[in-house]
C-alpha cells in the first residue's frame, strides 16, 4: 500500500518536472532557432516587406534578388574565395604544427615537455604589441601576403592543450611500450598508430582553427594593403557594420547624394543574403563535426 502510494507521487512529481523542462527547453530552442530562421526567410523575401515587418513566419514576396546582388558584388565573391583559401591553408598549417607538438607533449617520457609547455603558456602572458609584431612580419617579407594571416599564431595554445589531453587519454602508454619492444621508433609509431586514431581530435581542431580563420579580419586589416587579397569578413564589416561610406566633410553634390543613396539601397537589399552566404562553409562542416563535440570537450578540459 505504502509503496504504490510513493510510486504514484513520484510519477506525478516527475511528470511535472519533465513537462516543465520540456517547455523550457523548447522555449530556449525557439529563442535560438528563430533568429536564424528569420534571417533565412528574410533573405528570400522582398526587402520592403521585411522592413515593414510583414515577414514573421514565412517569406513574403519571394525574391532571390538579394542573393543575385551578392553574387554580382565582385568584392564579396572575391572575399569569399580568398577566405576559403586562407582557411584551408591556415588550418592545414595549424594541424601540421599542432598535432605533432601536442602528441610529443603528451608523452610522459618526453623530458622536455615541461619547458616546452611553459614556453607556450608564457605566450599568453606577454606579447610585444601590434607595432613590433608588424615590424617583424614586414621584415620577414610576409606583408601583403596571406602568410601573414597564417604563420604568426599558427599554434593556438588552448587548442594544443585540448589535443594534448586527447592524446594523453587515448593513446595508452602500454601501446607505446609494446611498439617500442617491437623496435618501432617514435615517428613510425606516430604515423602508423597515433594518426589513424586521431580522427576525432583532427575533426575538432579543424573546426576550431577553421572557424577561427573564417571569422577573423583583424590581421588582414593590419597586414594586407591590396584589396584583392581581403578576406570575406573585412568586406562584410563594410556592409553590415560600418554605416558611413562617406566622409562628413565630403562635397555632397546632387550627383554624389544620388550615388550614395543608390549604393546604400543596394547594401540594404543584400544584408540578409550576405549573412547566409558568409555562414555557409561553417554550416556545412558543422554537422559532420558536431557528434565529436561532447567527447572532444570532455577530454579537453575535465580529467576522467
Amino acid at each position, binding site marked *: 500500500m505504502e509503496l504504490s502510494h510513493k510510486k504514484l507521487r513520484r510519477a506525478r512529481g516527475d511528470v511535472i518536472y519533465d513537462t516543465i523542462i520540456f517547455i523550457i527547453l523548447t522555449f530556449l530552442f525557439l529563442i535560438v532557432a528563430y533568429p536564424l530562421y528569420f534571417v533565412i526567410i528574410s533573405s528570400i523575401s522582398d526587402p520592403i516587406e521585411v522592413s515593414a515587418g510583414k515577414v514573421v513566419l514565412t517569406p513574403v514576396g519571394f525574391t532571390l534578388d538579394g542573393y543575385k546582388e551578392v553574387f554580382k558584388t565582385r568584392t564579396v565573391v572575391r572575399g569569399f574565395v580568398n577566405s576559403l583559401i586562407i582557411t584551408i591553408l591556415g588550418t592545414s598549417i595549424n594541424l601540421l604544427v*599542432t598535432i605533432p607538438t601536442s602528441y610529443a607533449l603528451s*608523452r610522459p617520457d618526453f623530458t622536455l615537455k615541461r619547458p616546452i609547455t611553459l614556453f*607556450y603558456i608564457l605566450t599568453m602572458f606577454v606579447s610585444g604589441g601590434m607595432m613590433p*609584431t608588424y615590424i617583424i612580419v614586414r621584415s620577414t617579407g610576409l606583408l601583403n601576403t596571406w602568410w601573414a594571416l597564417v604563420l604568426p599564431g599558427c599554434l593556438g595554445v588552448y587548442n594544443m592543450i585540448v589535443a594534448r589531453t586527447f592524446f594523453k587519454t587515448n593513446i595508452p602508454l602500454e601501446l607505446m611500450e609494446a611498439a617500442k619492444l617491437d623496435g618501432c621508433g617514435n615517428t613510425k609509431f606516430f604515423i602508423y598508430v597515433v594518426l589513424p586514431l586521431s580522427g576525432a581530435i583532427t575533426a575538432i581542431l579543424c573546426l576550431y582553427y577553421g572557424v577561427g580563420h573564417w*571569422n577573423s579580419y583583424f590581421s588582414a586589416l593590419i597586414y594586407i594593403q591590396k584589396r584583392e587579397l581581403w578576406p570575406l569578413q573585412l568586406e*562584410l564589416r563594410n556592409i553590415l557594420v560600418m554605416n558611413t561610406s562617406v566622409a562628413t566633410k565630403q562635397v555632397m553634390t546632387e550627383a554624389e547624394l544620388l550615388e550614395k543613396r543608390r549604393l546604400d539601397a543596394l547594401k540594404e537589399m543584400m544584408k540578409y543574403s550576405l549573412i547566409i552566404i*558568409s555562414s555557409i562553409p561553417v554550416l556545412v562542416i*558543422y554537422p559532420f563535426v558536431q557528434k565529436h563535440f561532447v567527447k572532444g570537450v570532455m577530454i579537453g578540459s575535465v580529467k576522467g
Partner: protein
Amino acid sequence: MRGNWDLLLFCVPGMVFTIIYHYIPIYGVQIAFRNYKMKKGIWGSEWVGLKNFAKFFNSADWWVLVRNTLILSLYSLAAGFPVAVILALMLNSFRHKRYRKVIQAVTYAPNFISTIVMCGMLILFLSPRVGVVNNVIRALGGETINFMAEISMWRHIYVWSGVWQGMGWSSVIYFAALAGVSPEYHEAAIVDGATKFQRVLHIDLPFLAPTMTMLLIMNMGSVLSVGFEKAYALQNDLNLPVSDIIATYTYRRGIIDRDISYSSAVGLMNSIVNSILLVTVNYITGKLSDNALF
C-alpha cells in the same frame, strides 16, 4: 631523452614560428616607455619613462574604461554562467534523446557565427523602424524602442546576445561532465523515493560543483580582458559612455589617433593586470583541484 630526439623535432616548427612572431616582437614592449615616432623607429625614439602611463591615469577616462570593462565581464559571467549550467542539467535529465540531440545541435550553432555577422544581425534586428524586435513590440501595442541609442540598454544587449550566442557551447562542458555521474546514485535515489527534480538538485548539481568552481575561477582570471571586436562594432557616438572599454580605447588611440606609445602603454598595463589575475587564479585552482593549466 636519448631515444626521444624525434619528439623534439615534432615540436620544432611550431616553436620556430612562435619565437619569430611572438617572442622576438617582445623587444617592442619598450614602445610604451618611449615617444614613438615612425621616422626614428623604436630604438631611435626618445625615452620618456612612465610619462605615457601617467597620461592615462591623469586623463578623465581611465576609471570609466575600467568600470565599463569590469561591468561587461562580470555581468556576462553572472548571466551566462547559470544559464549554461541549468541548460546542461536540463538536457541531461531530458527524456527524449532524439529531440535533445536536435536542441543541442541548434543551440551550439550560434557559437560559430563571426562577431561581425552577429553584430550585423543585432543591428538589423534592433533597428527602430525596420527591425523585427520593434515590429513585434508594436504589434503587441508597445512603443518603439531605439535600442542602440539607449545607454541604459546597451550593456543588456551586449551581454544577453552573448548569452544567446554562447549558452549552448558553454553547456557542453557541464553536459559532458554529467556523463560521469555513476548511475548507481540515481538508482539508489529512486529507490528512496526521490523525484527527478530532487535527483537533479542533489546528485547532478553537486557533481558539477568542482567543474563549476574551476570554470568560474578561470573566468575571473580574464575579467579585465573583454575583447574589442564586439564592443567596437556596436559602438556609436551616443553609447560611448558605456561602450568604451579598455580594448576599444587602446585601438582608437593607437590606430586612428596614431598615438602608438600611449596605446602601447595602456595595452601593456592591461596585459600585466591580466597576467597577475591569471596566475593568481590558476594558483587557487591548482590548490583546490588538480585541474590547473600548468
